[in-house]
């Protein structure tokens, strides 16, 4: 019956209870939208980086990791082919692509810049990355010709380059000797990551080999079947690598992305914590008002023999019920809103440039994160429990005689 009394008590002042329940619901709704938005933005950024450029993991020689010199290769053709076959046998590996990675300079008629030159096997690159789909002009080594270059739009603009513009690339060969070769821009790409675009350019591995004298493979990109449990998959993948090779997860290749991924979970719990703090004070205020209004009744209950434990339980239940009504309403509203936003997207075109720097599209599609529903439910219950303490202590401190007299 204490449960029944507590339930009916919260409806004694309907307006007040509706305000508290409404604030809980709105707080949770906002929290879920923030979570959905943040996850949508971060996952899109991560997926974009993994899909277009870095893959889920990268294999290098340990020498390359120490210093990315031209001579720090993974091995000869046979060794690399064997390595790829070994890696592709793992059930969660969807595919691999090998690359030559050189630090170098690009010189145009207008300017020069330090760049990373990616010597790619176009067929592999097309199969394992979406970079060829980001081309805004030209093609990704489909047309005939030699010494073709695919360059990021941002770098092209800085160097004043257009399609068919001529540039000179300078890089070291395996012996450390500086080599130069002329290339023509055959494609211009634009990923969501402007920083990547400004620093990376792609050439056909065969064109590099002519200058280098032999194929140099510095990197094997590994793509997993899906972007879940990547830490565990990376550990398993590392176990099949021979000595002298190292594995970097996407989080290590792009620490900023990994940091954002790890930090986001903490930040979102903090945001939820702040929302709950605001709700906490609202609930405490509501319950203190309720205690004040019911002093006479609470005094009577203490006078006739309701012990402190039961009185505390009654107030705790009332507070908990407010949370248990507002919480699910907020979760349902948040879920519905997120689902609608998932379809139509949140248009931030006015912030397009800034978002591109972050590697994010201008339309954000939020995501549903079911784990957070459980976290929110736990936080609401905890908040309600904490909120009940002060009003309950106030009630327990009432003097029955004074309370009954209405003093």
């Amino acid at each position, binding site marked *: 019956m204490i449960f029944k009394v507590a339930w009916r008590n919260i409806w004694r002042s309907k307006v007040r209870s509706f305000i508290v329940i409404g604030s809980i619901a709105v707080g949770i709704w906002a929290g879920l939208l923030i979570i959905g938005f943040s996850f949508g933005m971060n996952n899109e950024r991560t997926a974009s980086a993994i899909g277009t450029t870095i893959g889920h993991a990268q294999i290098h020689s340990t020498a390359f990791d120490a210093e990315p010199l031209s001579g720090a290769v993974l091995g000869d053709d046979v060794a690399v082919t064997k390595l790829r076959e070994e890696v592709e046998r793992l059930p969660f590996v969807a595919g691999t692509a090998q690359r030559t990675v050189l630090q170098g300079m690009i010189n145009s008629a207008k300017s020069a810049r330090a760049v990373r030159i990616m010597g790619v096997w176009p067929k592999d690159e097309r199969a394992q990355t979406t970079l060829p789909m980001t081309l805004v002009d030209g093609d990704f080594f489909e047309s005939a010709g030699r010494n073709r270059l695919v360059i990021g739009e941002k770098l092209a603009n800085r160097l004043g380059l257009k399609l068919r513009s001529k540039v000179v690339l300078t890089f070291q060969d395996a012996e450390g000797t500086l080599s130069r070769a002329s290339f023509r821009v055959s494609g211009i790409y634009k990923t969501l990551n402007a920083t990547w675009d400004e620093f990376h350019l792609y050439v056909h591995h065969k064109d590099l080999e002519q200058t280098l004298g032999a194929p140099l493979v510095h990197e094997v990109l590994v793509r997993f079947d899906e972007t879940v449990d990547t830490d565990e998959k990376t550990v398993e993948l590392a176990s099949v690598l021979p000595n002298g090779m190292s594995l970097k997860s996407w989080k290590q290749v792009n620490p900023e992305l990994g940091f954002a991924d790890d930090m986001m979970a903490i930040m979102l719990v903090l945001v939820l914590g702040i929302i709950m703090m605001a709700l906490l004070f609202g609930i405490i205020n509501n319950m203190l008002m309720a205690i004040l209004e019911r002093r006479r009744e609470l005094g009577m209950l203490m006078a006739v*023999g*309701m012990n402190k434990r039961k009185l505390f339980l009654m107030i705790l239940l009332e507070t908990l019920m407010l949370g248990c009504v507002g919480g699910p309403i907020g979760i349902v509203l948040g879920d519905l809103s997120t689902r609608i936003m998932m379809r139509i997207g949140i248009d931030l075109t006015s912030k397009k440039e800034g978002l591109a720097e972050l590697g994010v599209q201008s339309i954000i599609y939020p995501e549903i994160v079911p784990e957070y529903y459980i976290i929110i439910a736990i936080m609401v219950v905890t908040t309600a429990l904490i909120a009940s303490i002060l009003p309950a202590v106030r009630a327990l401190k009432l003097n029955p005689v004074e309370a009954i007299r209405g003093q």
Partner: protein
Amino acid sequence: MSKPVIQIKNLEKVYEGAVPVHAVNGINLTITEGEFTALKGPSGCGKTTLLNLLGGLDKPTSGSIEIGGVDITTLSENQLIDFRLRNIGFVFQAYNLIPVLSAQENVSFIMLLQDRPKEEREARAQQLLEAVGLKGKEGQRPGQLSGGQQQRVAVARALASKPQFVLADEPTANLDSTSTANLLDIMEKLNKEEGMTFVFATHDDRVIKKARRIISIEDGKVLSDE
């Protein structure tokens, strides 16, 4: 000879302040089983203070109050709460029913606090409401009942815990004459038929006329005991 229910010895209650007030000043009393007693006196004479002390709602400055052989002045706060629940019934001036519960639930609630089984609670609540003339009103909430009816629910609630005695503080103060007469008839009937001990604090002549023992109090002392 009836056995004593309440034995008060040298009871004093002093409210400290710039001028200490002796609300109860050396009272000695014995109330026996089945009494229908009125404590009368003008406002501020100390009768409500005495009632609160008898009910264990307030602590005396000195003296003892024995109820059923237990000196309640020695009990801790928690022990007192439990003692009140099992031994004392209360009827308040302002009824003090729980507004969100029906008449029957208000009566049952005390028994719930005593951890009595549901069947017993429901049966006794119905029996008591019938005894106070509220058969058919069991499902109504206090707001749907008149003042007199609410006070009758309060009487039923006071009896629900099967107390040793019932303390009623100005139970008729908010009632019209018809309701007062009804309520007094019911309490008198319960006193005679069930032997329930009633102690009233009142200055209502209608109550005093019904009482079989009248204790006059003035300045915290017993002036007369008839």
